[in-house]
């Protein structure tokens, strides 16, 4: 127990307290931090347009990407739940892309969605599309491409839903059959309520992870101009919250500003998570009431 307490104090409590302090200072790592009051926060909200860009991009990827990813996960899990010949092979194939390390997956997509030579656009022009999207090179299409990347790696979520569905007692399905429920009704009135705790769990985890979205965006939006590495390309459409924090903190060494951003991030994450938890009482099925 005690090593954990030491670790908790050294690697969680101390950094939390000091990052809160740093957020009210100007600090470049070399000189000592000096107090600037709420200047970092005021700059963030009123003078840093890229803060808002980054926040909007992050919200976009959560609001659009997360529901889509969960929907695809439920759909594939529903498809793969009934045992039949070779089902393990099918399940494994859907799962494998999720094993690709984030950097590897992002680089693979950079190639697959390359507008000129990538296979995706070849297929699209092959089936007669006259000018297919430029994907990661077009500010309009860049974020949707990252959503596709997230959906390609849906296997981890799919497996969790699959496990949830396999746990549904078969008596319930039999009862639904006796009542004359169709496939859709069975799904809507039996499966969905019983996997609602899993949906809830995925949403909470998805929100927390979504606000910290970084690696894939960094890799595909990385642009080397001379000595300076830029991220967020094209036109800052892939500049996410953590990318901006990284830029300010670890490229420009504005540690005070980065700390202020981190605290706002924590606050937003907390508020969103609490809203989901409060809202969940209305739709998450309580297993305890059932057993």
């Amino acid at each position, binding site marked *: 127990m005690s090593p954990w307490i030491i670790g908790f104090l050294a690697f969680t409590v101390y950094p939390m307290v000091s990052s809160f302090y740093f957020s009210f200072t100007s600090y470049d790592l070399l000189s000592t931090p000096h107090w600037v009051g709420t200047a970092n926060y005021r700059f963030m909200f009123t003078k840093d347009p890229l803060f808002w860009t980054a926040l909007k991009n992050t919200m976009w990827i959560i609001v659009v990407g997360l529901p889509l990813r969960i929907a695809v996960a439920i759909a594939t899990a529903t498809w793969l739940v009934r045992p039949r010949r070779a089902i393990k092979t099918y399940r494994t194939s859907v799962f*494998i892309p999720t094993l690709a390390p984030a950097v590897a997956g992002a680089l693979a997509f950079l*190639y697959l969605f390359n507008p000129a030579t990538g296979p995706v656009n*070849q297929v699209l022009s092959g089936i007669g599309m006259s000018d297919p999207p430029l994907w990661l090179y077009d500010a309009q299409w860049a974020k949707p491409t990252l959503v596709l990347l997230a959906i390609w790696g849906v296997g981890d979520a799919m497996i969790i839903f699959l496990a949830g569905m396999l746990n549904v007692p078969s008596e319930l399905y039999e009862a639904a059959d006796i009542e004359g429920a169709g496939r859709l009704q069975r799904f809507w009135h039996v499966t969905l309520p019983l996997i609602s705790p899993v949906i809830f769990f995925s949403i909470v985890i998805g929100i927390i992870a979504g606000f910290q979205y970084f690696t894939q965006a960094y890799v595909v939006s990385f642009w080397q101009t001379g000595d300076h590495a830029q991220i967020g390309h094209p036109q800052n459409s892939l500049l996410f919250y953590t990318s901006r924090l990284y830029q300010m903190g670890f490229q420009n060494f504005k540690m005070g500003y980065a700390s202020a951003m981190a605290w706002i991030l924590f606050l937003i994450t907390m508020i969103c998570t609490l809203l989901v938890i409060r809202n969940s009482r209305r739709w998450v099925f309580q297993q305890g009431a059932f057993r």
Partner: protein
Amino acid sequence: MSAAVTTTARRRPILRRTLPANVRRKRLLLAVADHALLIAVMAIFLIPLAFVLLTSLMTSEQALTTDMWPRSFEWDNYAEVFRRLPVLRYATNTMIIATLSTLGVILSSIPVAYALSRLRWRGRQATFVIVLATIMLPYQVTIVPLYVLFARYGWIPGFKPLIVPLFFGDAFSIFLLRQFFLTIPEELSDAARMEGASEWQIMTRVIVPLAKPAIAAVALFQFLYSWNDFFAPLLFLGGDSNLWTLAIGLNEFRGLHQVEYNLMLAAVVLFMLPVIVLFFFAQRVFMEGITVTGVKG
């Protein structure tokens, strides 16, 4: 799941004998349609990987064309990656970091999870709530002061910032292990206590052997997390290319060889391969672990 498989298998021959031919034909057609769809879904997920693999075997000129099939299989691309990129050094670095952090997480999280699940003491519930809250805390909140702290210790660039904190427990692993420890019947500990075993002995001799599947899953997740991690190595190792992990090296390699897709994708395959091999060897641990994390969390 296995129970369901056996019941359908047992039922099928009886149905076959009694069903009329037209119903049987309909069933067969439905099964064919079903499998056709399944194969289509499988293809959507696997075809991107096939493209990556095929292009990694092309010449660099062909990789820039619209061809889909390699004219000649350039296995030498893989050797070329090893010549251009210190793959072995990166792999060794990644291995050292991943192995030591996994070891650290396991050694430090088991006792905490044990204390939070099988010992009674004041403040236990409050401590558990703190552990849960720590999971929600974005690492961005702590990273700046930690960076400052590690820089002051002279640990940057170096492996220590990526390893040392994990020897002091990891909230998520503590949580998972605690949930599993709670499912082990209390009678087992009581019996050991009657025999005069100390709590430490009960933990190491009774609980840990019974919790092997959960411990294996936690270890596997931590190992993969460290293996794939990008943000922390970027911050703490970025300054010294001798210390880079595969993830960092791969990203930089892309920057240097922007147009040589064949080499870049060969490097991608090399980076993915160990993970996929590990998956096939540890498939059961994987699936059980994901199920435990997802459903019990």
